[in-house]
């Protein structure tokens, strides 16, 4: 159990408590500059503006030097020793810990196999692709056998096919270990794909925590709903109302339908003026205005619309997220 006690991610931010259960995969989801990297640096003991007491399995580690903490880190800009081979890189933390050479090489082979690096052991990092280099950085972090593994946006900068493959690999790999993993990201898809538990951060504060489905189905407020949505949620705000006071309801882009058929009896329809669309083939995002609000609709497959076109769109009453008065 990793317990954050009275933690402030920025000097003037509200303090919070949080527990990461042992052996779980935790996704920390927040926008850029919401405090994700500060959280990682605080746990790892690196210099940062965050403050708080950290208790790992009953031991207070906040005053320990980084080297003395059982914490491994992989940053977004992955670092490997450029003049060492893949095998030497993976072995480096074990050699630093004084692990016997024989045990060390068995563990190197095992990690290389898990991360698909077994045929690359004699290569240098600059002879690897971006994805392979990042897997090497992860293998090196796992070789430390730390009780906590911090992955700070490890897949950003990789192209989407590689991300897709690595997310699958990581899911399998990290769920097998008894390491407590903390994975930070801006992408709600990662939270769904990887997280046993999700922690939402907003402006250096803890916003909500729970399983991905709980956070998705029962967001504590507009910002929480928006964070756990790709693209963001659609607000119901009339131009006459104040934004802050009127963010009482929202609907997710995937819950807006182009046809009211099959929606049952409880639904509302809206008039949307189309501004444009994006498609990835398997889904289409339609951008437009509804009652003065920017909305995005996410539909499966390829949908063809023209800018300026008017669409009648429908939302199931059950799919409208309602929030208490802020």
């Amino acid at each position, binding site marked *: 159990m990793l317990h954050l006690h009275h933690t402030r991610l920025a000097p003037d931010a509200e303090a919070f408590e949080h527990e990461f259960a042992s052996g779980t995969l935790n996704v920390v989801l927040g926008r850029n500059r919401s405090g994700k990297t500060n959280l990682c640096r605080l746990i790892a003991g690196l210099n940062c503006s965050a403050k708080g007491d950290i208790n790992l399995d009953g031991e207070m580690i906040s005053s320990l030097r980084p080297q003395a903490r059982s914490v491994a880190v992989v940053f977004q800009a992955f670092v490997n020793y450029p003049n060492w081979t893949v095998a030497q890189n993976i072995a480096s933390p074990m050699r630093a810990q004084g692990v016997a050479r024989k045990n060390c090489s068995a563990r190197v082979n095992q990690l290389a196999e898990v991360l698909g690096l077994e045929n690359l052991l004699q290569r240098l990092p600059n002879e690897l*692709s*971006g994805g392979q280099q990042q897997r090497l950085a992860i293998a090196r972090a796992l070789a430390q056998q730390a009780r906590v593994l911090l992955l700070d946006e490890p897949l950003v900068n990789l*192209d*989407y*096919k590689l991300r*897709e493959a690595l997310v*699958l690999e990581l*899911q*399998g790999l990290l769920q097998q270990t008894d390491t407590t993993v903390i994975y930070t990201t801006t992408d709600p*898809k990662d939270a*769904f*794909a990887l997280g046993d538990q999700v922690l939402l951060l907003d402006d250096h504060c803890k916003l909500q925590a729970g399983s*991905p*489905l709980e956070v*998705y*189905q029962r967001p504590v407020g507009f910002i929480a709903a928006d964070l756990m949505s790709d*693209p*963001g949620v659609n607000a119901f705000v009339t131009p006459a109302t104040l934004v802050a006071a009127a963010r009482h309801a929202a609907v*997710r882009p*995937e*819950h807006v339908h182009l046809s009211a058929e099959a*929606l*049952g009896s409880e639904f509302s329809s809206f008039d949307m003026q189309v*501004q*444009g*669309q*994006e*498609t*990835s*083939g*398997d889904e289409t*995002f339609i*951008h437009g205005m509804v009652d003065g609000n920017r909305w995005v609709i996410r539909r*499966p*497959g*390829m949908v063809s619309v023209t*800018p300026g076109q008017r669409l009648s769109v429908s939302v*199931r009453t*059950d*799919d409208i997220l309602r929030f208490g008065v802020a």
Partner: protein
Amino acid sequence: MALIELQELTFRYPGAAADTLTPVSLSVADSAAFALLGASGAGKTTLLNLLSGLLRPTSGRILFNGEDVSTWAGRQRNVAQVFQFPVLYESMNVADNLAFPLRARKFQAAAIKQRVEVIASELNITDQLGHKASQLSLFQKQLIAIGRALVRPDVSVVLLDEPLTAVEPKMKWRLRRTLRRVQEELGVTMIYVTHDQTEALTFADQVAVMGDGKVLQVDTPERIYNRPLHEFVGYFIGSPGMNFVPSEQLHSSLSLVPGTKRIGFRPEWATLHAQNSAHINGRVTAQQLQGTDGGGLVGVQRLATEAGDLAVRGNLQAQVGQTVGVRLEQYLCFSQQGQLLVTPHE
């Protein structure tokens, strides 16, 4: 603006053992919105450098409006480029940045002023003309960089090399929409290079998918997705990509084109059923939740089957570990070489 044709174009870097581009032939219509889509290492940047004149082809020809420009210097080709990161003169204001390509080519002051105004109004940046470039956001800077590529009236083609990389995700679609509107209104031939399927399929009327130095398919976005001519195209486009299954592994017989070695199907082209009515049987190994539909959970289920690992999109009714049957509602037939064969239900 120009019709761009590549005829049997090859390129090999000096000293390299193999061609980076194997013969590439394609044509980009005048005033077209065209995308080159491929993974890194597919040869996209090499092709772009050949078009802009930074590299000379090893063999083959490049024609602009029927004229062979293969040996022309970049300057003579009238090619404008937009790069991943905006390249601007930071100390100049927006108007001077836009005017720079015209001044460098000794256009008349009055003509320059008029053209800068046209482009600024086209991009809705007239109110920023007096701002220093260094004060702008990345999004605004990239918009100016695009404006600078468009400012010369005599440009043959605008080449865009991953132009949205530096722009934050929520702004991307706005910049892409502006780009597309300007492309249509000014009738500019644009070639847009990207590794991102959404960028390519959204921006272009015609998409060329590249893999391993070859152009594998040139087609409309809709056909690229629904009728990939090559297995790689099916795998590369879509997230997750197309599933492929050896045809001899299918339980009940689907109607197959003679010569079929593998069948391909998109994750949303299959449904899960009881085993007895299925084409393939397997076990659910993982579920990737993506949201809810009508309160029920939807996402991608990963299956381990005798025909390999598969991804099926839809309702997450089955449990991890459960044995299920996969029914193919739609599929394509591929040859031993991975080429699309005409399917029976067409």
